[in-house]
């Protein structure tokens, strides 16, 4: 500013460049990020879309016709929808029961139940396939013990695994709305003469319905996109995500794989848009004025019995599932030969896979955190049109099924100009871009907390943009950066659906290793690798929690 005021000095080239950078750097960054998002998120999806219409002889709809003629294909679609809907219904009920208990139930029960409902978060979703096979498989403990002939490779198995895996998602969202309801509303209804059942029906559920709807939609998306559980337990039942994988590895049919991907992607994208732009901010503000402290009251016996009838089997299953994984990692074959062994834990191949996964996750985490932080900054402080489009792109990776992006990546990056196939880079970029959402959201919320005036004040004091960025913005956003890093690290560690398309023989990743050993029935090896993964995830969750405590950043809820 001061130098510009001198006015009559002829401006040097360098000075002009500095002014340009100062005023346009945000937009320059934005442009760069836009290109990155376009290449690594949009382009693969476009490839999938094109490939579903593009045969050897150009544009054609034959693949879609085929999809609708052969009932194997459309059953795959219908089954996926049925799986999504049934898991959704189960989890809405179970999630509500858990949340009601942890917000209205007896104090001593609240924390243990909450821990139980959140426990599946610290393990990949497909852990439940492994446990269920250990318990109910052909040689399963419970089958053997009770002499049952129960077949876990069935609808029941897949739905049970999915419901256990996504319980935390449903629980967290419903608990959140139940917790934020003004307790006076329920008291007031009771004052008007309503019984607890009437209160639940006419007050609690209607008020929680926006949150319940969001939970239902999210569960639906996550369930239909999940690859591991239906692939391991689905047996002969066709489902879209595993079929897409088989279409490529088995038949090399990229066209049909693309059709299946598009069919899977469409409901996910619709729900993503619904969730982010229609339901956003919907909900009732129920707290006006000063809320009064409320002492917990007894739940009516009938309702309590119903809640416990729903909750108890779920708690038992969650605990059993984790228990057999831990036991399975250290004994020869759980339930069959219970001699203690180190073999599974010390298996070389498994350790190498874990090592590779950690390496990949570190790189993806770092890369994702950098891109996420920059994106958050640009979205919040940029002054260009299309910021919302950018935000939507950044957040969409979370809603897109991993298999779809996986298919897209192989097709998009197997030839110049983007020849990445077979390198670790394709994995890094895939994971970094899919899991941007948390880093971006944490960054945005951090920037919401600080006034733009801080930056303006620094600029006013003579700091140019780059100095402001390094000295002021980065320190403020550091916690968001770390949150994005840990989150990307953790999800990359566990993610299976996308990387399974991209790994090359000889470069095993932990998730893929667990999947393959589980497929082969090597449950001990699968359990041992899962235990190591859980340990790493727990460390990540603990660091996130610590970070949240230290910086007041709320990110661990995502």
């Amino acid at each position: 500013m001061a130098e510009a005021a001198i006015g009559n000095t002829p401006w040097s080239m360098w000075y002009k460049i500095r002014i340009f950078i100062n005023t346009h750097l945000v937009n320059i960054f934005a442009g760069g990020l836009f290109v990155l998002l376009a290449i690594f998120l949009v382009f693969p999806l476009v490839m999938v879309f094109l490939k579903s219409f593009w045969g050897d002889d150009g544009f054609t709809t034959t693949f879609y016709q085929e999809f609708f003629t052969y009932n194997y294909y459309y059953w795959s679609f219908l089954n996926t929808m049925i799986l999504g809907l049934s898991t959704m219904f189960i989890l809405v009920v179970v999630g509500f029961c858990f949340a009601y208990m942890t917000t209205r139930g007896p104090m001593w029960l609240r924390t243990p139940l909450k821990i139980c409902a959140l426990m599946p978060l610290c393990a990949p979703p497909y852990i439940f396939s492994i446990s269920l096979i250990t318990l109910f498989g052909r040689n399963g403990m419970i089958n053997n013990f009770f002499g049952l002939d129960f077949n876990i490779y069935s609808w029941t198995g897949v739905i049970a695994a999915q419901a256990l895996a996504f319980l935390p998602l449903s629980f967290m969202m419903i608990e959140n709305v139940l917790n934020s309801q003004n307790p006076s509303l329920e008291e007031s209804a009771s004052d008007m003469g309503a019984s607890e059942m009437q209160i639940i029906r006419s007050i609690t559920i209607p008020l929680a319905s926006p949150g319940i709807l969001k939970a239902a939609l999210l569960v639906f998306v996550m369930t239909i996109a999940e690859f591991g559980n239906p692939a391991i337990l689905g047996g002969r039942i066709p489902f879209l995500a595993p079929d897409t994988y088989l279409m490529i590895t088995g038949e090399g049919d990229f066209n049909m794989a693309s059709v299946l991907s598009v069919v899977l992607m469409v409901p996910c994208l619709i729900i993503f848009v619904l969730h982010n732009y229609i339901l956003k901010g919907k909900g009732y503000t129920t707290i006006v004025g000063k809320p009064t402290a409320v002492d917990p009251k007894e739940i009516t016996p009938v309702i309590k019995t119903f809640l416990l009838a729903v909750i108890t089997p779920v708690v038992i299953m969650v605990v059993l599932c984790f228990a057999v994984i831990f036991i399975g990692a250290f004994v020869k074959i759980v339930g069959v030969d219970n001699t203690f062994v180190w073999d599974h834990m010390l298996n070389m191949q498994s350790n190498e896979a874990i090592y590779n996964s950690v390496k990949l996750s570190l790189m993806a985490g770092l890369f994702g955190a950098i891109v996420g932080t920059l994106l958050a900054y640009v979205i919040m402080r940029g002054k260009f049109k299309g910021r919302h489009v950018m935000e939507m792109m950044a957040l969409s990776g979370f809603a897109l099924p991993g298999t779809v992006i996986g298919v897209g990546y192989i097709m998009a990056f197997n030839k110049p100009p983007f020849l990445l196939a077979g390198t670790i880079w394709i994995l890094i970029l895939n994971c970094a871009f899919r899991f941007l959402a948390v880093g971006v959201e944490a960054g945005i919320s951090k920037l919401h907390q600080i006034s733009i005036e801080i930056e303006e004040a620094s600029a006013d004091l003579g700091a140019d943009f780059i100095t402001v960025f390094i000295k002021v913005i980065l320190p403020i956003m550091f916690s968001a950066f770390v949150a994005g890093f840990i989150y990307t690290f953790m999800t990359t560690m566990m993610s299976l659906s996308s990387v399974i398309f991209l790994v090359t023989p000889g470069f095993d990743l932990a998730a893929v290793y667990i999947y393959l050993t589980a497929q082969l029935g090597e449950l001990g090896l699968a359990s041992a690798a899962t235990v190591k993964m859980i340990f790493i995830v727990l460390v990540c969750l603990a660091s996130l929690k610590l970070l949240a405590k230290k910086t007041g950043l709320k990110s661990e809820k995502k």
Partner: protein
Amino acid sequence: MSNKEKPMLELVDVSKSFGDVEVLKNISASVPKGELLTFVGPSGCGKTTLLRIIGGFTAISSGQVILDGEDIGALPPNMRDTKMVFQSYALFPHMNVRKNIGFGLKLQKMPKAKIDDRVDELLALVHMDGLGERTIERISGGQQQRVALARSLALEPKVLLLDEPLSNLDANLRVVMREEIRSIQERIGITTIFVTHDQYEAMSISDRILVLNDGIIQQIGTPTDIYETPKNKFIAEFVGYVNFLEGKIESFDQDSELYSVSTEHGNVSLNRTNNKDLAVADEIYLVIRPETVMIFSSDSEDLPNMLTGEIQDSMYAGNLVKYTIRCGDREILIDQYNPKDSIKFKRGDKIKFTVPKSVHALPKKG
């Protein structure tokens, strides 16, 4: 108005502890039918807790709550004939005004047509005719207050409970609404308990006031009792400003029924009517309200009960002037009303002032 034989609501030795903290200690009080009783006291003294005990939202630790002759201490809120207006109104945001008011009636399985009639009646009662179809977000704070009131009245409870119902409204509306609540309450003759920590609100609306502090009832009585003959220094200071003047009773004259009291600043005589329990040689505080004192220039003729002082400060407030008088080593606050027609004093002026004979006195100990 009141039915002395059988109170509508009776609290007998009500105690409440949260953990080790005893919030209410042996509260006993009875409320006749049709009375509006106000709970006042500083923040955290247990007003809300006591009200919630009556409503059934908080369990009692010991004691009895008797409603119309029946012990209701163990009943849940939905089985009590008391209805509460919550501080946050607790209106159901997913229902319109009409549905909110009719909520309790519907639960009682009243036929639809009858509910409609009753709701119309209630809407008229709270001056909300025609607004029944509005959603809760689309009515103002004052209107929400009216809906909450109508909803509680719908079920014709025996006792209406209001927890600081006006605290979410701005000052002007607060005055309008408190008058309206009082007029509705008097019209339908409903026994009402009203919680507030605003002393003026309490004075202007109540039949009787219950002053609560340290978990015990400090005093229960009409607004006049509480203001003019407070039982202790805490109550005197809680309701309005007060000057305390220390003194000692020197003698009592049987014929004129006057005590003669010596203070540091001179002697005053005191009526017996307001001070029946005092005896000669008692050490006392004179409870002097600023507006009861008359102020004169130093050259005016001597009157009974006259003391002298010097103006230290004055503040003009339109309808009155607030003087701070230095009297020995003590400051005394005096309000002089209608300053237009009286002498205005300046800082440093020597003045005289009279303490009324009817002044209330508190024993220094006990």
